């Protein structure tokens, strides 16, 4: 919550055309600038941020320190790439801009994006650093992009000259899959000097992490809580149902014949449609099967959610789903049929073999088969036990 005036120095030199970061180095930089502006203004509403460019025809101040985020975002538009970065002049102009800030109580901070080679001498940079320290200006350096002889060394020397009690930082960001702004989120530039991350930075980091699918179902609970909840509940119910099915008797009822055929057709259809895409659809397939066999009362809503998602893709699948929903609604005993059918190893493998996208020799397929089989074994044992009970039921 430090009251701060910040000047951000952007590198818009020719080196920024390179695409090794994000869409282009320049675009990655622009995203990072937006993030920083947001974080600063959120941590303290009286904070001001200004922007200047270091390359092009010369150092140019785009916007003087202001707390108006819209102005800052607007000035990032239509920036041209070209020329060479002039680091020394850029920092000095930033210092001047900060000196003339309106609220003299604000701390002065400069954030520099150094993406192209640094042509100044180390001595020059050290002197600039000393001058900054003398005027109690803190400096954050983002070292990315080009990494030629001595650049890192020069920047480290500059930081050492400015640094007063660890208030200034340098961050080295190599090219990689992660976006520049995402990497910056975890650095002290965002999190402040040990004050703890601002709420903005923390939530932005969480969202970024979710985007890289660190979540169970590939759905960030923050973004879509209902879908995430539906998926999770359906998974749990499927597991519970499988356990219950293992205990239930496979009813050797006459209905099995009739219901079985219908179920056969629906299951085959659904199987072929549902898992035809790829291996990662297999989970959805199993879930969908589980859905159709679930207690209708409790999971009807979830069924609808799950099924409507899948059905949207395929009209035949939709028909199959409808049939299965009707079936499960009227005949709970047919649930047992399904489990028995699944338990039949040969039946399952024949289905899977007929699916265009699934290879029975695929290890993950074998895993699934194995798990089905292990459930079918206790089932068969209990079949015999509960045979008398079935007759009572009927």
């Amino acid at each position: 919550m430090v009251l701060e005036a910040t000047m951000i120095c952007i590198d818009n030199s020719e080196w920024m055309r390179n695409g090794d970061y994000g869409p282009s180095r320049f675009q990655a930089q622009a995203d990072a600038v937006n993030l920083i502006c947001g974080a600063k203004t959120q941590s303290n509403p009286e904070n001001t941020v200004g922007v200047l460019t270091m390359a092009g025809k010369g150092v140019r101040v785009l916007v003087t320190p202001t707390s108006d985020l819209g102005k800052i975002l607007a000035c990032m538009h239509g920036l041209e790439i070209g020329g060479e970065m002039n680091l020394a002049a850029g920092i000095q102009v930033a210092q001047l801009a900060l000196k003339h800030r309106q609220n003299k109580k604000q701390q002065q901070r400069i954030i520099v994006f150094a993406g192209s080679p640094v042509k100044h001498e180390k001595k020059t940079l050290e002197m600039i650093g000393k001058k900054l320290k003398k005027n109690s200006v803190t400096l954050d350096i983002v070292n990315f992009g080009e990494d030629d002889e001595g650049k890192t060394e020069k920047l480290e020397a500059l930081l050492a000259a400015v640094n007063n009690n660890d208030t200034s930082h340098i961050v080295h960001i190599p090219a990689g899959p992660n976006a520049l702004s995402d990497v910056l989120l975890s650095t002290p530039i965002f999190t402040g000097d040990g004050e703890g991350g601002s709420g903005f930075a923390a939530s932005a980091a969480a969202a970024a992490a979710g985007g890289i699918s660190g979540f169970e179902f590939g759905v960030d609970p923050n973004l879509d809580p209902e879908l995430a909840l539906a998926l999770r509940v359906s998974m749990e119910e499927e597991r519970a149902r499988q356990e219950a099915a293992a205990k239930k008797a496979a009813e050797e009822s006459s209905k099995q014949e009739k219901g079985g055929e219908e179920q056969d057709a629906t299951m085959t259809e659904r199987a072929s449609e549902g898992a035809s895409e790829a291996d990662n659809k297999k989970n959805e397939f199993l879930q969908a099967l589980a859905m159709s066999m679930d207690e209708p009362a409790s999971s009807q809503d979830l069924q609808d959610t799950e099924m409507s998602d899948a059905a949207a893709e395929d009209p035949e699948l939709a028909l199959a789903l409808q049939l299965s929903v009707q079936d499960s609604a009227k005949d709970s005993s047919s649930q047992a049929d399904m489990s028995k059918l699944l338990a039949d190893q040969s039946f399952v493998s024949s289905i899977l073999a007929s699916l265009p996208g699934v290879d029975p020799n695929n290890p993950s397929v074998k895993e699934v088969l194995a798990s089905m089989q292990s459930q079918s074994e206790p089932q068969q044992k209990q079949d015999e036990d509960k045979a008398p009970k079935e007759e009572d039921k009927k």
Partner: protein
Amino acid sequence: MSAAESATAIHRNQVDLLDFIDWSGVECLNQSSSHPLPNALKQGYREDEGLNLESDADEQLLIYIPFTQVIKLHSIVVMGSEEDGPKTVKLFANREHMGFSNVSDFPPSDTAVLSQDNLKGKPVVVKYVKFQNVRSLTIFIEDNQSGSEITKVQKIALYGSTVETADMKGLKKIEDH
């Protein structure tokens, strides 16, 4: 600076202006974080010879002291060591938020070159007429005695008097008749 003025004795009615310093606005540029300004200004700290105000990046120091009320400045005491104590001291009255870049932009209200006597505690009398209506004082220490990289100041004391201001305690409510 009038050399004829009494060198050692503080004039009558001149008080130590320590009580009138507005501590929330006190600033010092280029001070070392381990040896900050309170070491030289605050009661108790400034008497301790081990606690000094030291400069950081180079030998110059810029000290800004606002006051809680308007004062007249009569003299100052700057104490330091023989080699590292300050030499040239420039005083600016009522200039807010100066920086090292604009110290040369306007002439100082007074300049003092400190001798060894001064560094031992002899007060420097200032041009009283220039300091009649002081709300804030900026002290610019330009260099030190030996020209070393770091300037060390052991004590800074300000002597003067207050301008007649309304004594709020004496205000009484007018009786309604």
